[in-house]
């Protein structure tokens, strides 16, 4: 396996250095910890801090920017940041109005962010969190709190950022952000594994002609392993499963993200979207906005996920606020 790195234990440090210096116009690195901080961050408002393991770029660092997160706390490859990193990153953007943490619902992240919130509370800093659990293939509906966070993260961060910009209180921002989370579902299909940088081995085994529906970003088992199928079959299977979990009715408005997992091309994502759009049109669902990008990845993992956020008046208002990061941008409308 060819991987463009130097030494395995330098990967995260070199990633941080390169990433932040490339976008130094927008970002600065926290002097002590692996925190990416937006230079033009919110003032006198609730701060939004996101975070998680590295290796899923542009998630989370690339979602720091205008109308999005004020900072991202970055962990080792596929591992949660430690509470020290989370606390220091949060304190660097604290404006005294409270900090909302948004992160994916994984055991390691939950433990470390909880520990960080405890420490910050002791220091008199107001915090709250919203865990993203959009992957509807990862646990049944009665256990949504066991579900993992995947590409739906970006919708939740987008709404949270706009709510912070609106000058809401921490409680209000949290409520809106939870609504965005509860209105978002994702489901994916894996066609080939990613790799762990420096380990020289795939994150999971998948036969040459095999695919797995619902497989997680790190190779977590999915719901069905089968042989490769045409794009339209993949798209329709995901669509049917996603809508089973979050019914979307005739006349509803939605935002759609077709997210590549790392090695899937815009050509492929476009072909998928074409079918998803056809199905949404058939069902009378109005697409408010759509996106074809690789935002939540696992190195060169093949496959894609479909995320849908069902809008209501409030979510739509926040979604339509402009935002800009080097990896995610929306014109206001």
């Amino acid at each position: 396996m060819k991987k463009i790195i130097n030494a395995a234990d330098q990967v995260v440090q070199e990633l941080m250095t390169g990433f932040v210096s490339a976008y130094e116009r927008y970002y600065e690195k926290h002097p002590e910890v692996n925190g990416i901080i937006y230079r033009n961050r919110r003032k006198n408002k609730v701060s939004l801090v996101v975070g998680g393991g590295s290796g899923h770029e542009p998630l989370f660092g690339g979602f720091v920017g205008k109308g999005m997160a004020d900072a991202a706390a970055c962990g080792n490859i596929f591992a949660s940041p430690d509470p020290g990193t989370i606390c220091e990153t949060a304190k660097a953007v604290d404006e005294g109005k409270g900090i909302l943490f948004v992160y994916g619902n994984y055991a390691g992240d939950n433990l470390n962010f909880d520990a960080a919130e405890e420490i910050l509370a002791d220091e008199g800093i107001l915090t709250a969190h919203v865990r993203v659990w959009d992957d509807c293939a990862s646990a049944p509906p009665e256990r949504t709190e066991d579900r993992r966070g995947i590409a739906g993260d970006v919708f939740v961060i987008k709404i949270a950022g706009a709510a912070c910009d609106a000058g809401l209180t921490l409680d209000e921002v949290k409520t809106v952000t939870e609504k965005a989370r509860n209105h978002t579902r994702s489901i994916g299909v894996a066609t080939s594994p990613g790799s762990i940088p420096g380990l020289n081995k795939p994150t999971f085994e998948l036969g040459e002609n095999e695919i797995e529906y619902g497989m997680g970003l790190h190779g977590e088992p999915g719901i069905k392993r089968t042989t490769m199928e045409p794009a339209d079959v993949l798209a329709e299977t995901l669509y049917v499963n996603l809508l089973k979990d979050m019914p979307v009715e005739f006349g509803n408005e939605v935002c759609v993200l077709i997210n590549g997992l790392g090695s899937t091309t815009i050509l492929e994502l476009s072909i998928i979207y074409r079918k998803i759009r056809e199905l949404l049109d058939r069902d009378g669902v109005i697409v408010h906005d759509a996106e074809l990008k690789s935002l939540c990845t696992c190195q060169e993992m093949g496959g894609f996920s479909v995320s849908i956020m069902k809008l209501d008046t409030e979510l739509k208002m926040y979604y339509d606020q402009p935002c800009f990061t080097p990896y995610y941008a929306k014109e206001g409308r």
Partner: protein
Amino acid sequence: METLSVKTLKEMILYLADQIIECKPLLTELDSAIGDGDHGIGMEKGFLKVKEKISVMNPSENVYEVFATTGRALLMSMGGASGVMFGHFFAAGAKNTEPKAVLKTEDFVALMQKSLNIIKETGKAELGDKTMVDALEPAVMAMKMQDEPSFLDLFRSAESAAKEGAEKTKEYQAKHGRAIYLMERAVGHQDPGATSVWIIFRSFREFAEKHLPDKPVA
């Protein structure tokens, strides 16, 4: 009765830190088989922070402060679920204790028992789940079985039970962590977290052999 002073405990923790750092390649190798290969990197990072924090620790008259400082350093620097769990290994048992100038063997056993309880509760892990609990629980049990032990006896019993427990994890499927996704494919591989627990007790035993009096004063 044999006791450990704050000074001796600090030396023991510093000795442990060096041993863990030396074992990085082994931990990396084990974790590469079933995890994401970063357990060695994480433990090294954590114990480098421990060395730093223990070296500059305020002169303390409380032995529990040494454990709390060690645990805090791991928690604050490692990341991942293991950072929290190895933080608890040292710090959880020291929480809400009355300050003591010297540590008795029974204090150490009580501390480890409390840490084990918190680790199991926080991680929702039981014996056989292929985690550090598979080494720690037998080690705590073995220590409790000792009758009026010296620290060396205590560490010997813990080391041998932890070693056996860690080796047994080869037979288990994982219920936690990244190895969970391998299901039956994780069988045959030893859990890196359990191995670290074994290395901790082994290091304590080595330290006791080198630096503590041979027999406890009766």
